[in-house]
């Protein structure tokens, strides 16, 4: 009798752990932490309103996501990569090299990059030149062509109109698309104002990039990971610090943080949409064409994301802080997504 009991117990345990090599039946999304809030909202609605499984979404940073995405076409690679900047030529090349030849680009909207701080703290009225001088690793010296290690420790040393506060900026690491966009739009924007640096753009592009994009490493700029919500929390606890993140996070937390003016424009919906606010960039996600037929629900998910309900002017993504595309552009994006137009750079 005892033996029989043991046998039944054994078999029932084995039945509980049935590991079958079945295919993946959920969509796997990786990438930007800026697009993450939008992606998760669409995923949740999608899961609730269709019979497909809710997509699994990881926030790895745009760069990290691209690397995973372009690793190959296999079932164990992600289906969609969110990006807070356009895919680089080198990344698309990596995709092609690894066999991912069908990549569909979907432009979902615009987003501003804000430099924000705690709502009760000082007001900052910055220019892009200020940002460059405060955050670059090497800044221009007295003479043209000379570079010195960044000596500025307080904001009023960079620009006498700014508060006498220690420079402490929490920002994204190099895996983040926000970082790429920030160095290209804000820092490069300020660095170009030096004539001699602007001249090097033509003569020595690599040096130009290294001057304008390298961020200081002496502790004034703190790489705060991919979690923008965490940055907001840290700003509340540290009123002298500034944080760099996407406009949607500012929009959703207006009672906790406020955005600084940049080049005279305040970070608001209208100014970003019109282009008046200089640090704004488009948001994308990229889809593996090969997976659309294989993973259940892909078409429906793409349909939901690009629908008027979601991405449109009155869509629920706008409620979350996304700045929507104009009418014409939206129609084009919808059409390209439906036909799975392959990306050529």
């Amino acid at each position: 009798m005892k033996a029989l009991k043991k046998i039944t117990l054994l078999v029932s345990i084995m039945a509980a752990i049935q590991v079958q090599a079945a295919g993946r039946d959920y969509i796997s999304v990786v990438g930007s932490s800026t697009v993450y809030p939008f992606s998760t909202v669409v995923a949740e609605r999608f899961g609730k309103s269709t019979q497909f499984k809710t997509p699994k979404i990881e926030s790895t940073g745009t760069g990290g996501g691209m690397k995973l995405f372009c690793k190959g076409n296999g079932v164990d690679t992600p289906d969609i990569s969110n990006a807070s900047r356009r895919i680089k030529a080198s990344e698309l090349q990596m995709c092609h090299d690894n066999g991912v030849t069908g990549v569909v680009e979907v432009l979902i909207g615009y987003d501003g990059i804000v430099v924000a701080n705690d709502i009760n703290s000082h007001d900052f009225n910055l220019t892009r030149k200020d940002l460059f001088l405060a955050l670059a690793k090497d800044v221009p010296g007295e003479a043209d062509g000379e570079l010195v290690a960044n000596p500025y420790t307080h904001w009023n040393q960079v620009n006498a109109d700014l508060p006498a506060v220690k420079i402490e900026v929490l920002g994204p690491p190099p895996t983040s698309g926000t970082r790429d966009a920030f160095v290209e739009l804000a820092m490069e924007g300020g660095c170009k104002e030096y004539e001699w640096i602007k001249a090097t753009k033509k003569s020595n592009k690599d040096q130009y990039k290294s001057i304008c994009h390298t961020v200081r490493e002496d502790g004034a700029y703190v790489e705060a990971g991919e979690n923008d919500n965490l940055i907001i929390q840290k700003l509340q606890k540290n009123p002298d610090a500034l944080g760099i993140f996407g406009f949607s996070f500012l929009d959703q937390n207006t009672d906790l943080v406020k955005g600084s003016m940049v080049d005279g424009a305040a970070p608001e919906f209208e100014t970003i949409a019109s282009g008046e606010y200089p640090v704004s960039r488009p948001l994308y996600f990229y889809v593996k064409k090969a997976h659309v037929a294989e993973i259940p629900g892909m078409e429906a998910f793409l349909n939901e994301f690009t629908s008027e309900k979601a991405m449109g002017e009155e869509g629920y993504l706008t409620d979350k802080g996304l700045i929507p595309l104009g009418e014409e552009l939206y129609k084009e994006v919808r059409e390209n997504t439906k036909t799975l137009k392959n990306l050529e750079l």
Partner: protein
Amino acid sequence: MNNTDLVKKSLGKRYLKERIFRTLGLLSIATAILFLVFLLTDIASKAMPAFSQTKITLPIYLDTDELGVGASNSVEEIGQADFRRVIRDALLAEFPEVSKRQEKRELYSLTSMGAEFQLRDRVMDNPDLLGQTLEIDFMADDDVDAVIKGSIDRYLPENDRRVKDQKLDWIEQLEAEGRITTGFNWNFFANGDSREPEMAGIKGAIMGSLFTLLVTLALSFPVAVAAAIYLEEFAPKNRFIDFIEININNLAAVPSIVFGLLGLAVFINFFNMPRSAPLVGGIVLSLMTLPTIIIASRSAIKAVPPSLREAALGLGASKMQSVFHHVLPAALPGILTGTIIGMAQALGETAPLLMIGMVAFIVDIPQSVVDPSTVLPIQVFLWADSPERGFLEKTSAAIMVLLFFLIAMNAIAIYLRKKFEKKW
């Protein structure tokens, strides 16, 4: 002065020192316990609001035209119908003065995103409701919820408040009309993770923890007990066995994050097992709890007096028979206690699971050990970063649930220990 007087003089001081020392000891214990109480009350007070949910009662006219439902009333059609629209219509009917686009958006945000799915499920269950007008309690959005609970102070100046004056006016009007009710928050226990605080629940995390612990138990218990029996009863005294023992003792004190590195390098990278699955998490955790259970089992086996073994041997049993028929049953309470404590430790582990990818946003409740899922401590970790007030209380509530499970498991272990403790 002779020695006795000298001693008598110093006696006062020495007794004082004695009292101070004794009080210090008592104070230390008091400090530790006080901290524990402080921690628990702080988290409990933050968690209390999470268990209630604000609802808004609105009259809904289920107009088939507005919904876009044809005459057939099939389930698919109802599933695709636009319930958001009828809810919006109901809100506009309450506040007909709202006209501007921006204002309308604010108005629509009074109800939760899940409200339309609530309505849809209800109509799908009972399609006869179409065409009728009903009073339905909808989940309120987390901002409204926060105002009602007082987490957002309505008496602050507008700039400092997340909810602006106009929205506040609407909420107060609804309150005056008696349309705002609060009830127990069943969503917290019935839903998985969500982006909206009012809809977020821990069921997904609890099922994930359950599956992970199941795998851990199934793997670690038999192996650990077998190893303990071998080491205590059968192992010869040679260097190989010494080496095994040293290994086990060291593994017990290795930081948990190193096990996470092992899981990442070997199981995910080398064996290509699915990321975020309780299976891999369970394997990593079982490697971690193995030393704990082995050590506990060994002491339990060691505590069985030799007289029991010798009696069995004296009656003609073999070594194996004496172990399995007499020593093991006698040591079983201690072994079980050790196992339960090991499982409780595994339940609270976060770091190794972070490394193997159980940090994704997963809404569906896992149905098996290979479905992607997250566990309770990681859910706490994920929610702790969200700035919405709603998530703050949900995080605290999730911690309370976690602590509840842990206390229950430890209590069972202690109870078993007390009940089966035999004084040899």
